[in-house]
């Protein structure tokens, strides 16, 4: 739980405004613009944290140290990752959690959070300084026009059903596991970088420590233990959701079955991602 504690301390820093109630009221009123402006300025992260309860395990219980969901059992799951853009506050906790969980070298990113700002002339400004890891407590000062919309978009592996990276890997070091996770055998990878070029989403990199291809695995090692991916676990607002679509009780199933509009990134490329977005506007690439 030290992770959570460090995360909480991060969040507390954001609480620079005493107007909690007013902000929450705005949220309830769905005053998106006012809300977003506050989010961009980094002032309401904490209040959201207080509002939304967190789920800590993937299923009913987290398995013990020596236990694991069997491969056969895992094959019967149909995992999906849903990112709710309307829920992301750009705190960067997911990125911090991911880096710690997976020992990702500095300057390389398994996941990152982008800040989108759209002015009244529809100019789209996107940035992601340090992958959004330090949160977005400082607003952009280079936007001269009035801002009409702003939001945060977390990015991670799209876990495609038709993965380009698996297709191009010359030595089959990147593969789709029997339980449908796109993974990398780092003891087999030659680091030719072809997968880095082929991934339409830019989620791959050559890990400068291992000198092999690396990317987000949706924390496969945790999932097999019955735990949520580290980023999902760390997300204070529930903007990152992960679960089994074959379980009708899971949150992801319920969202899938609801009238919520879900989109995938770069659909036209035909990679069939299993990472879905709620509220990702057409500007999101």
């Amino acid at each position, binding site marked *: 739980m030290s992770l959570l504690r460090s995360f909480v301390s991060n969040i507390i820093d954001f609480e620079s405004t005493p107007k909690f109630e007013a902000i929450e009221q705005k949220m309830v009123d769905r005053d998106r613009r006012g809300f977003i402006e506050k989010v961009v300025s980094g002032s309401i992260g904490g209040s959201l944290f207080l509002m939304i309860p967190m789920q800590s395990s993937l299923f009913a219980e987290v398995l013990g140290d020596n236990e694991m969901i069997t491969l056969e059992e895992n094959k019967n799951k149909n995992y999906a990752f849903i990112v709710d853009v309307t829920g992301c506050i750009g705190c960067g906790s997911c990125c911090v959690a991911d880096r710690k969980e997976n020992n990702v070298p500095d300057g*390389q990113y398994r996941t990152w959070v982008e800040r989108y700002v759209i002015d009244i002339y529809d100019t789209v*400004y*996107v940035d992601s300084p340090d992958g959004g890891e330090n949160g977005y407590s400082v607003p952009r000062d280079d936007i001269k026009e009035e801002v009409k919309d702003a939001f945060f978009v977390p990015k991670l592996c799209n876990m495609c059903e038709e993965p380009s990276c698996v297709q*191009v890997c010359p030595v089959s070091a990147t593969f789709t596991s029997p339980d449908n996770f796109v993974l990398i055998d780092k003891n087999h990878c030659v680091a*030719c*970088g072809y997968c880095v070029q082929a991934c339409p989403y830019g989620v791959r990199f050559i890990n400068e420590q291992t000198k092999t291809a690396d990317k987000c695995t949706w924390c496969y090692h945790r999932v097999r233990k019955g735990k949520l991916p580290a980023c999902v676990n760390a997300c204070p607002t529930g903007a990152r959701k992960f679960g089994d679509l074959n379980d009708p009780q899971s949150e992801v199933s319920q969202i899938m079955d609801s009238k919520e509009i879900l989109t995938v990134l770069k659909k036209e490329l035909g990679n069939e991602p299993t990472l879905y977005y709620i509220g990702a506007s057409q500007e999101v690439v």
Partner: protein
Amino acid sequence: MDASILNYVFPNDVHAHWTLMIVIYPYITGVVAGAFIVSALAHVFHVKALEPIAKFALIFALSWLIFVTAPLLNHLGHPERAIWMLFTPNFSGPSMMAGFGYIYMAYTILLIFEILYIYRADFIELKKTTTGFKRVLYGVFTLGTDDESKKGLEIDHKISLFLGAVGIPLASLLHGYVGFIFGGVKAVEWWFTPLMPIIFLLSASVSGIAGIILFYIIIKKVTGKISEIKTETIITLVKLLWAFFIFDFVFELLELGVHAYGATSGWHHVSSALHGPMYFSFWIMQIFVLSIVPFFILGYLSLAKVNRKMLFVLSSFVSAMILVQVLFMRWNVVIGGQIMAKSERGFASFHPQLFEKEGIAVTIIMLVAPVVTLWLLSKVFPLWDRVKSSSKK
């Protein structure tokens, strides 16, 4: 909105990952394939004017072939695992790169045997006149038979003809598939076109022919035997270069034209890169200085009556330009494709250093090494037919 103003690239994409090594890898492969095609025109299609350079073209191809894997191995994060490309190839994807080991190996074996059969008669002669290590070497190269009978030479000829004929599609495959490696990547708008393998193949032929012309003239000049060059050979090569170059350049422009006319969202990004960070290397260098100018020089040399000295000077000059054009083309494909970042909102950067693992110095060494190797090989393999090297002009 112009991508250069917003300039957002995904955080893992900030710098181009494929470096100068991946620029010169298709370049070297291209020279190999092109040179082989020149030799095949003489050996298989019996183009008489090219016979004086038929052997030279093979050795020229071999000298570059030896260095095809050098930039690749230098680029790999784990070169010690490169062998897995042969033992655990991904044929289910299939990975275009996985075919490399096999095609390269097959082509290398073919080229070596093609050379051994074509040179066998020479080796028998050389074995008689040399001593020591060289004699042993030639003994091995003759494949254990000193048969100089007419029948024996005919068998050599038939085998080399067969190997040459098989070699043409194999050489085309060797380079066409390199084009496929890029042309099959749908994530990169600038690469994803079925014309890519064709453009690679044509530019390979162009670079091979240009390389042959340039080094033929330079070697003859340096060795003081320029009078041995037949004017007809150079004119044939120049015409061949012009023809291949027209096809090459037209396909390059067609690819660009159809892409621009289609004006998909991807094109807008490509277009802003071509008018931004790639303006100099693409429009100024690849298209104008190194394509349009050589096109007219080659046309002039092919159509007008030019005196011998002028022909040699201009054809070696234009060949050098073409060799650089192909290098720029490789740069613009490999680096350009990466500069057009996948965020579709900006450009990645690429700044090669002079001294680094995959830097400029190493690149230059890898491009000079085949030339040095050619010189070394010429000590063992006579580049020219002594019998036919009369001073006919």
